[in-house]
């Protein structure tokens, strides 16, 4: 079975395309309102020392996402 990858599994300097955003309605909408919508390209810039949060570049700005958010962004 093919495992569905999330942003958590992305590598530094990788550009990924968002396929789906999961999670409860609040979290999902909050992520989307910050510009992470289906089909958008996300460039992974770096990880914090303990692998989370993740710093990404999306819609022209730098955004940090916690592990919980990253897990819910499927790529």
């Amino acid at each position, binding site marked *: 079975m093919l495992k569905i990858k999330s942003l958590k599994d992305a590598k530094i300097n990788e550009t990924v395309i968002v396929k789906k*955003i999961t999670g409860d*309605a*609040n*979290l*999902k*909408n*909050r*992520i*989307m*309102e*910050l*510009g992470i*919508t*289906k089909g*958008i390209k996300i460039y992974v*810039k*770096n*990880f*914090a*020392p*303990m*692998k*989370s*949060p993740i*710093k990404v*570049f999306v*819609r*022209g*700005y*730098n*955004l*940090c*996402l*916690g*592990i*919980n*958010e990253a897990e819910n962004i499927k790529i």
Partner: protein
Amino acid sequence: MALKLALFGNPNCGKTTLFNNLTASSQYVGNWPGVTVEKKEGFLRGNKEIKIVDLPGIYSLTPYTDEEIVSRNFLFKEKPDLILNVVSALNLERSFYLTLQLLELNIPMVVVVTMMDKVKKNNKCEIDFVRLTKMLNCKVLTVNSHNALECLEKTREIINLIGNLKYDENFNLKYSENFEKYIEKITQTLSSFENLKEKEKRKIAIRFLEKDEEFLGEIEFEDEEILKVKEILKDIEKSYGEDTKSVLIKERYDKIENIVVFSTKGLDFKYDASDKIDSIVTNKFLAFPIFILVLGGVYYFCINVLGKPVSDYMACILNEVISPKVEEFLIGLNVSNWLINLIVSGVFSGVGTVLIFIPQVFMLFLFLSLLEECGYMARVAFILDRLFLKFGLCGKSVISFLVSSGCGVNGIMATKTIKNENCRLITMVSTTFIPCNAKIPIIVLICSNVFRGSFFNVVLVYLISIVSIFIVGLVLKKLNSFKRLEPSFLMELGPYNLPNLKNTFYYTFSNLKAFIVKAGTIIFLASILIWFFLNYGFSNGSFGVVSQEDSILAHIGKLLTTIFVPLGFGNWQAVVATLSGLFAKENVVNTFGVVLNSSKNSNGVISFEGIFNGNFAALSFLVFNMLCAPCLAAIATIFKQTASLKETLKIIFFQTVSAYVVSLFVFQIGGLIFREIGFTSCSIITFLVLFLVLIIIFSFNKSNKKI
């Protein structure tokens, strides 16, 4: 005619800078999202008719956090005459999301684009303002928010426009054809609103799609209408395979992409420089050492290198020059003895002991402000988030802690930006553990008088404070005494900035002013009261001047000494000092200044002999005063934030218990190891408590596996 202008925009987009320039006031501007947590009001320079309101930065109108609720409530309940939507050119796309939401509320609006200078520095970019104005059906202009004159001019221009802003009444931002069909269906269903304009109907329809229950709850619908609308909403969800809100968000962003493509050119802000700094500052191996180095450096510099010599010099002048001169002068005036005593050994010892810390406080606020301004504070939250999650805290707690090292009240206010309720409460409990500017005098006083001024001891106190934060976080997390919610971290990481000197100095001086004002009011009053209760009392059935041992204050203190015996400072002087600290932490120093005035030598060094038997008793006293219930101002802030007496009392209870337990460990275990005290029944109790704490920390691990 009075007008109300409201500044709306994303966090960190320059609203407050604009506000300051428009109203000639000086609100603090920081470089991390969420500096403004409450709305601020002011009048346009030289025009009392026009009120300007600065609202907390928000990304959307959906009320997720307190700031968003503040902004939203203002919008719907106080109805501004004009919205100034401040938009940062650094991230036009994301900013326009809020713009679109605001536009759909049909309130007159002007979009103000800031930070053009920063984008221009990077590359050749262009924004076609005419086109943008047309596409949004809303006046769009740019302003350099740092240039006060330009701001004012532009605002006057805007104000003249009010009333004759030329908008196309029938213009709506159209989404995709398919989605518009559904919106039309909803507006047609709203049959009981026949008299409303199309635009207003559309507004209601969009509120339905947003699932804005709060807004809709205030409108009266017919039952039939609601049923029909709900059916349409279901249809949408079925055909898109997603909830209506998600569909709407996607539609909005698609529209924004379209607008941005057609009206701008080369508007990519390059984060190269910031990313390079980040790759070092947030590096896997370097992040923590750099953080410790920066923080340690700042404190070493503030307290030891620059602060201490100046403070010592001031203390010397106060004790050897000013105090005797005043005394001489008063004697010359033939003032009665008790008044001289009050002024010299009450006010001068009390307030003076606090005021000599001005250099330290000044330096600390200056550095804190610089760290915040340049953007390092936000990075600290980034690197520490994961680590802190393990202790029931989160990255944003760090910001609160750092702010607390200036003033606990500000630190508690900063917890507002923490979304996770559980984490916010734990942060509130522990944020005042961090020694604030009022506690620094206590540390310095004890360290320089008892520990002979070694910097190591200052570091030790800070370390104990930080370790206590972790222990208390762990215990509270495990006890699950506060409601548990999923941890969340969503934060914009803006570019590094050169500190704006105007801002830095404003921040430093306003905090310094507060410190001095406090010394002049609360501490001045407390000095007099302490002096009075320390010199007066009942003896032989009559009220009058008595020796310190018989004074009212000594009696109050003696009531409570037993509780503090296990902590090593079971004497009334230390107890009274601790109690007086509840009003303002500087009072601890102030009280010692008055109580131990007679044991001061000519250099102003206070002898603590008899107060603390051994170094660990002194350390335990220090730790207790660092951790226990904060000052009244901070407690009031906690109450304001939690809006619940029960929560507030719970927080204070946890703080005081933590203080007691940690101090117990310090005195009993530390004293035992270094042979300052013997093994007593207290030691047994201490080890039992330690055992209990360890059990709590390690036991529930299985049931609480996730994070």
